[in-house]
């Protein structure tokens, strides 16, 4: 087990390095290079640019620049936004908790709904209920989340006036828990639908596979009650592949759902990334890409280790 973990960790390191090199490479090919923004937008003249270059160490060969950039990044110096001059780290630190709140709740909802739907569909295979649930799951991952959000706002805010149309809190109003909950309902459900659809399909097919395996038949032959057979043996093992999928989705707690946050004006990472893309604010863009990519590698690693822990057959590959 330990050997497996060490192996996986060692494999992740070149991956992380590769990611950093790629991100650095993108930084170089931006039109005008890292200082392009100053030239294009703020009309700096060539002499100033040359002085800046020397100051920021941009006249040195690429590998040295890369090492400098990487060491600075690891120490937490992520540069300053082109637009607002705020340190990128502050921008991200401010937005990250909002995104984690939104995405955390939405994942939880997606898991609850998805797992329940998957279990029901598998137990009542090919029945009407199964077909209905299947159609709902398909709709779940076929609906673009921003359109769903638009329609939700149309119905619940414009036509019915029940729920607020965006933001985290009502401006100038009391910041009570119920106010925050009202603001959370639509974004969380919109973001959860897609994943709920996927999780339910996955669990359904995983359960199908497991239910037909020999050890389930043995458990029944032993005389165990069907409910125990199902929950302790079938379900537990069917959930394992789902763990990997969820673990791979979790980095989005950092990246945020760009579309959901934009539609609902949620002040999170995703919306910030969108604004930065429109403004071509590359320090922000690249730090976010790095952050999410690193999170993906770390969570993949955790997922693999968890999977090996839950399913001992994997360890001996």
């Amino acid at each position, binding site marked *: 087990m330990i050997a497996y973990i060490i192996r996986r960790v060692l494999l992740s390191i070149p991956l992380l390095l590769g990611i950093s090199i790629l991100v650095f490479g993108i930084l170089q090919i931006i039109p005008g290079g890292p200082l392009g923004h100053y030239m294009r937008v703020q009309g700096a003249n060539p002499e100033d640019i040359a002085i800046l270059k020397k100051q920021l160490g941009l006249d040195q060969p690429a590998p040295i620049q890369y090492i400098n950039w990487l060491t600075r990044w690891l120490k937490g110096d992520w540069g300053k936004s082109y637009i607002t001059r705020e340190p990128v780290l502050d921008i991200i630190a401010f937005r990250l908790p909002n995104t984690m709140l939104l995405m955390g709740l939405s994942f939880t909802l997606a898991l609850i709904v998805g797992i329940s739907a998957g279990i029901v569909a598998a137990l009542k295979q090919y029945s009407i209920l199964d077909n209905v649930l299947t159609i709902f799951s398909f709709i779940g991952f076929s609906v*673009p989340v921003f359109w769903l959000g638009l329609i939700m706002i149309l119905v619940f805010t414009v036509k019915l006036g029940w729920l607020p149309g965006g933001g985290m809190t009502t401006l100038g109003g009391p910041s009570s828990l119920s106010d925050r909950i009202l603001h959370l309902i639509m974004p969380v459900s919109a973001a959860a639908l897609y994943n709920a659809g996927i999780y339910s399909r996955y669990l359904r097919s995983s359960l199908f596979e497991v239910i037909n395996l020999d050890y389930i038949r043995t458990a029944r032959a032993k005389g165990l009650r069907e409910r125990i057979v199902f929950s302790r043996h079938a379900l537990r093992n069917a959930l394992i592949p789902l763990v990997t999928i969820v673990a791979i989705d979790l980095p989005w707690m950092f990246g945020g759902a760009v579309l959901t946050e934009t539609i609902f004006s949620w002040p999170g990472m995703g919306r910030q990334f969108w604004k930065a893309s429109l403004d071509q604010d590359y320090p922000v863009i690249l730090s976010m890409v790095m952050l999410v990519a690193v999170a993906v590698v770390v969570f993949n690693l955790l997922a693999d280790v968890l999977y090996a822990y839950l399913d001992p057959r994997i360890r001996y590959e």
Partner: protein
Amino acid sequence: MSQNTSPSTLAELDLETLSREPRSYRSLVWRKFRRHRAAVVGAVLLIVFTLGAALGPAISPYDQYEIKLDQMVKPPSLSHPLGTDDLGRDELTRILGGGRISLSLGLMASVIAVVIGGMVGSVAGYYGGNLDNALMRITDLMISFPQLFLMMLFSALFGKTVLSIAVVIGTLSWMSVARLVRASFLSLKEEDYVLAAHSIGAGSRTIILKHVLPNAMGPIIVAGTIGVAQAIIMESALSYLGLGVQLPVASWGSMLRLAQNQLTSAWWLALFPGLMIVLSVLSINFMGDGLRDALDPRHLLN
């Protein structure tokens, strides 16, 4: 399956059974597909949409770009079945025109993804060893990047024509196809016909393209189909965010972007483009599900 039961005893082998035409692979697949009702409905819908998108703007009495300020923002009526937008353009015609963009872009992106993924996966799976390791590391690297983020970044960098957006989406979506193809190749390369081809002197390229690839087509077709659906959603997301197709060319996503500003006054502008996206993607997904069942070699063994 009433006509298809194979004779279980020798006595049932009569002249009729023996002289029946053997069922081809293609007809078996088609029969399996037909039994999946949702897939058939999806396929029919898709054909309808494609025809509508291809012919619609041409035969419509309205021009999708013509601005008629006296017809601004009218709700659905007999003369304008889906209403008009804020510049007086007929919404139905615009939706059909948007369909041209969205559907063709989705197809292009998926083709690009399948070609790249197919090449990477087949080479990795067939040759194995260090080449396989290297290619899979690159694939893992690409997977680690947040797809939507990179798409937003690249479309901000590389321009926003229909072709460049298709290329951006395609080059960031090939990874799952590569994995699928690699898995197929890993198992198929052990088959006897590969050994036979090798022994008569066939080169690796010939073996890959002429012998193994046709047998690996099943998962590739399914992945390609579902890829079109994903590409459509990606493109509409990019266009909605302002980073995709630019005006005056309209895709369903950019129409939603325009509709957002008039949500309170013109609900039909938000409802219909999105509905089209949902229906198209749903049809493609059902079709893909049906194809997956139809092409599954296990089912054909019956």
